[in-house]
């Protein structure tokens, strides 16, 4: 019935809307035909043509009115009115291009900022993983740690014994050297259980995946599945790769297939290159923990819940198995209790900081939008006041208040939509750029924030909501308009002297802007300080080279010799001051730590430890190469080998924590699992090891011969020009072993990558602050310009009566400046309170920094000056004569 109804009526409505002239013509024709026939009839009855015409008109009872009644039946009034309002709005907006562009720009900035932040939120938090039925895919997370590491043995038990998941898959992440025939390159490898792709429910882009049926014990499945991106970039989309044999860390692996194009693993922003069966871990990592129940190395365990099973039921199930494992293997397995998490952000480990960061950004962006709305609200209110005569005139001519409000509202929404479209366009560009950005060279980290429908919808919604917000401001004004009085009063009548809604809006807006400016000042200051922060090393004039020797087949006995040769070879480069090896330079992601016990402790259980110290293995010249000051004692030497007593150099915090003081630490012993007693032979200054904002952290440096490591970083200190040095290093590494892939970067650049999270936060804050500042300018400018233009006549009279310049300025701008002062003060106080939160992200972010406070005051004053400059000039350049003549 409804559909049939529309079938008949829709064409009519469309015709009424778009073929208006034709419809009108038809109406005229139809009525004319009737009139003619009527007249003919009257004439036939014996009336004169004039009489007949008049009689026909009478019978029709007013042709124009009848036509209007016919038009009323068309039911397209709302559209007609809207079209009229839009046409009218366009004319009005085109008439004041300055106002329009300021308003659109303001909104574009605010909505753009929000769209970008929402795009990030959408990509990292809201969007489900790119796998079928992502909503029922959960990762396991232990309650005691905020991540999901599990041993392979435990994984197997959970896989076999649980009754809640369709199946559980597990995987670990590592790096390997992939040799496709010519040049070996470094790849990020997902070592996955056989059922991995089946659990994900994926179909290969090419070839096939490996399955559980391919698993026949350790090293039984030398297969590799390429990610689409790796296939695309390293095999140029060659469909013939399936079946080819490549070498992974020198071991032959057969390429089975290519993963789907939009599948990037299960961590949202970590894009692995290849997938291999977990059972072949020994070939890929050089050792195997397949049988070690106490080593938690399976990075993530995940699976789809069976239909009808709730997460709570699954948790109970898992906890039961955990309890069973604990009674079964009390030595290897501690207490276990679980939580199910969406896998994309690896549970709380990454999820918490990412969510906190995005929430913070969202809040700031929201504040900016609010400030923009307040800004536009006051502009609109001012305009409505200026247009009070127009409104009054229209009211007097019979327009309904409703209709006038609708007109004003249409204007607001039009501006909102234009601003929203501009902002969205800008944000799409920015998001696209962000998507291809690789912030950390060493890790395959991408931020896949390509905008989707959600982002577009969010921007549209924000635009409409903000349009409604600032469109609503002048409503009361219009409703109160009394046409008689307004028209009588003439232009420039009735200046509000008391505190108006407009003033409040401006103060609110300036307050918000001052908050943003304050926090961005704090952030920028922190960033500046962090650039020359005391990190305990000197990153300038140093090159880093990361190698993982097993990629070229070195392990066991062959390893130390090769490492020694690398050092010597680098040392031989002219202009190199010092060369050393370290397992991982400070501030690099993922530094391992180890539990340290007092010498007298015999029971080495976790609860008895005195410190959880970061652990580095170094070659003798490390402190020299890194420029870390040795406070007392000696560094490690090449004589500190497997046959010599175990020794360590510790930092000052380690000494304080474990021994009470540096003096007591020298020459004393501590204990660790696996190494027995360790003697402290040297003490170095504290540094920053994980983040710049961390508190003093205990760290120990062990001789690399006593604590060997396959993965190391060469620190090469030289004053030579970077590129020359890099070429020389490259040549020498080639000479040593052309089959060894490596990663080289200047330490400064590497540090930028390592600290990118806090840098990004700082930069984001800085940008938000700038946006805040721009909004403050347009807001104050609008207010000042308006108040000057409103009082031109008064100022003219004052001038004519001999007022001095500062009196004119006082009269014209005093109010705007007062509001600015109030708003800034309030904003600064709020900003100072809120920046406490920043202290955790930004290095040395303290709002009590006099420089920051002074900076904020200067900035707000400067903004005020900038924004009032043009209105002030206008006020001062008044010519009272012309002005008074005009009225």
């Amino acid at each position, binding site marked *: 019935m409804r559909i049939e*109804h529309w079938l*008949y009526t829709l064409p009519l409505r469309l015709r009424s809307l778009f073929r208006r002239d034709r419809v009108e013509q038809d109406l005229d024709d*139809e009525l004319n*035909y009737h009139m003619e026939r*009527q007249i003919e009839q009257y004439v036939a009855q014996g009336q004169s043509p004039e009489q007949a015409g008049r009689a026909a008109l009478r019978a*029709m009872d007013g042709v124009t009115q*009848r036509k209007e009644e016919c038009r009323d039946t068309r039911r397209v009034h709302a559209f007609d009115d809207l079209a009229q309002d839009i046409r009218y709005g366009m004319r009005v907006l085109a008439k004041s291009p300055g106002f329009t562009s300021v308003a659109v720009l303001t909104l574009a900035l605010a909505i753009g900022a929000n769209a970008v932040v929402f795009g990030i939120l959408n990509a990292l938090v809201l969007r489900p993983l790119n796998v079928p039925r992502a909503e029922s895919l959960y990762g396991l997370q232990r309650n005691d740690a905020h991540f999901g590491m599990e041993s392979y043995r435990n994984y197997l038990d959970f896989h076999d014994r649980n009754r809640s998941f369709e199946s559980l898959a597990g995987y670990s992440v590592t790096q390997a050297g992939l040799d496709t025939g010519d040049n070996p390159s470094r790849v990020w490898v997902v070592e996955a259980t056989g059922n991995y792709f089946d659990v994900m429910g994926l179909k290969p882009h090419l070839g096939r995946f490996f399955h559980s049926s391919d698993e026949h014990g350790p090293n039984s499945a030398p297969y590799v599945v390429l990610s689409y991106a790796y296939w695309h970039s390293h095999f140029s989309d060659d469909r013939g790769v399936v079946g080819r044999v490549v070498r992974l860390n020198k071991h032959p692996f057969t390429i089975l297939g290519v993963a789907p194009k939009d599948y990037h693993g299960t961590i949202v922003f970590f894009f692995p290159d290849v997938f291999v069966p977990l059972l072949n871990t020994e070939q890929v990592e050089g050792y195997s923990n397949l049988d070690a129940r106490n080593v938690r190395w399976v990075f993530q365990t995940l699976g789809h819940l069976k239909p009808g099973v709730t997460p709570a039921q699954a948790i109970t199930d898992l906890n039961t198995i955990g309890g069973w494992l604990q009674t079964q293997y009390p030595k290897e397995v501690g207490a276990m209790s679980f939580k199910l998490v969406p896998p994309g952000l690896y549970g709380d480990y990454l999820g918490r900081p990412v969510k906190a960061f995005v929430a913070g950004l969202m809040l700031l962006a929201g504040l900016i939008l609010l400030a923009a709305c307040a800004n536009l609200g006051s502009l609109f209110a001012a305009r409505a006041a200026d247009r009070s005569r127009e409104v009054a005139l229209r009211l007097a001519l019979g327009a309904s208040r409703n209709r006038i409000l609708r007109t004003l509202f249409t204007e607001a929404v039009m501006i909102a939509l234009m601003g929203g479209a501009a902002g969205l366009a800008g944000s799409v560009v920015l998001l696209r750029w962000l998507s291809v950005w690789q912030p950390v060279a060493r890790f395959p980290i991408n931020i896949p924030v390509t905008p989707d429908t959600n982002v577009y919808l969010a921007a549209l919604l924000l635009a409409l909501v903000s349009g409604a917000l600032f469109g609503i401001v002048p409503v009361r004004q219009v409703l109160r308009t009394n046409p008689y009085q307004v028209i009588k009063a003439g232009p420039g009548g009735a200046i509000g002297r008391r505190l108006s809604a407009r003033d409040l809006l401006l103060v609110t807006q300036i307050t918000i802007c001052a908050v943003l400016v304050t926090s961005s000042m704090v952030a920028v200051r922190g960033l500046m300080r962090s650039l020359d922060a005391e990190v305990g090393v000197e990153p300038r004039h140093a090159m880093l080279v990361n190698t993982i020797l097993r990629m070229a087949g070195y392990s066991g006995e062959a390893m130390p010799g090769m490492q020694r040769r690398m050092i010597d070879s680098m040392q031989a480069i002219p202009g190199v001051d010092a060369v050393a090896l370290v397992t991982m330079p400070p501030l690099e992601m993922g530094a391992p730590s180890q539990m340290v016990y007092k010498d007298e402790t015999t029971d080495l259980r976790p609860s008895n430890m005195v410190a959880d110290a970061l652990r580095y293995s170094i070659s003798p010249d490390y402190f020299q190469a890194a420029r870390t000051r040795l406070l007392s004692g000696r560094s490690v030497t090449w004589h500190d080998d497997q046959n010599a007593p175990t020794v360590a150099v510790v930092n000052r915090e380690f000494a304080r924590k474990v021994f009470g003081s540096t003096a007591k630490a020298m020459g004393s012993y501590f204990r660790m699992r696996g190494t027995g007693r360790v003697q402290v032979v040297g003490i170095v200054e504290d540094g920053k090891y994980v983040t710049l904002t961390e508190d003093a952290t205990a760290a120990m440096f062990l001789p690399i011969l006593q604590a060997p490591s396959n993965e190391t970083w060469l620190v090469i200190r030289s004053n030579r020009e970077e590129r020359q040095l890099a070429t020389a290093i490259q040549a020498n590494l080639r000479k040593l072993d052309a089959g060894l892939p490596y990663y080289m970067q200047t330490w400064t650049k590497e540090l930028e990558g390592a600290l990118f999270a806090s840098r990004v936060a700082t930069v984001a804050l800085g940008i938000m602050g700038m946006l805040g500042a721009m909004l403050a300018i347009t807001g104050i400018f609008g207010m000042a310009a308006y108040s000057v233009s409103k009082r031109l006549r008064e100022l003219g009279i004052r001038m004519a009566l001999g007022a001095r310049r500062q009196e004119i300025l006082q009269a014209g701008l005093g109010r705007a400046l007062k509001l600015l002062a109030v708003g800034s003060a309030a904003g600064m106080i709020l900003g100072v309170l809120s920046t406490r939160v920043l202290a955790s992200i930004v290095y040395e972010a303290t709002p009590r920094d006099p420089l920051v406070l002074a900076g904020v005051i200067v900035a707000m004053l400067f903004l005020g000056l900038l924004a009032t400059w043009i209105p002030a000039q206008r006020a001062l350049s008044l010519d009272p004569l012309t002005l008074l003549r005009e009225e």
Partner: protein
Amino acid sequence: MSRPTDLVQGTLDLLLLKIVALEPLNGWAISQRLRQVSGDILQVSDGSLYPALHKLEQEGWIAAEWKASENNRRAKFYSLTRLGRRQLEKEAANWTRLSDAITQVVRLEEA
């Protein structure tokens, strides 16, 4: 107002639908037919005829078509649609119910 005050509210629609149901007609012819069939009892002014016709058209009950009229001039002819036929049946039934009820009340004998 040009509303036919002596015409029971809503019955104009019924009359028009019924007339158009018999054969497609133009506005002028409809007005003649109305006068013809009901004599002077149902007075529908020319003024109220066209808004009523347009309303029926916009409801989708009657469809319009431009054709040559009986005196060979272009005129707008209205015909009943499927929707209109259903509406006509409904309104006719309503009318019968209403008039039956009223007739019964009127025929009540005074006790």
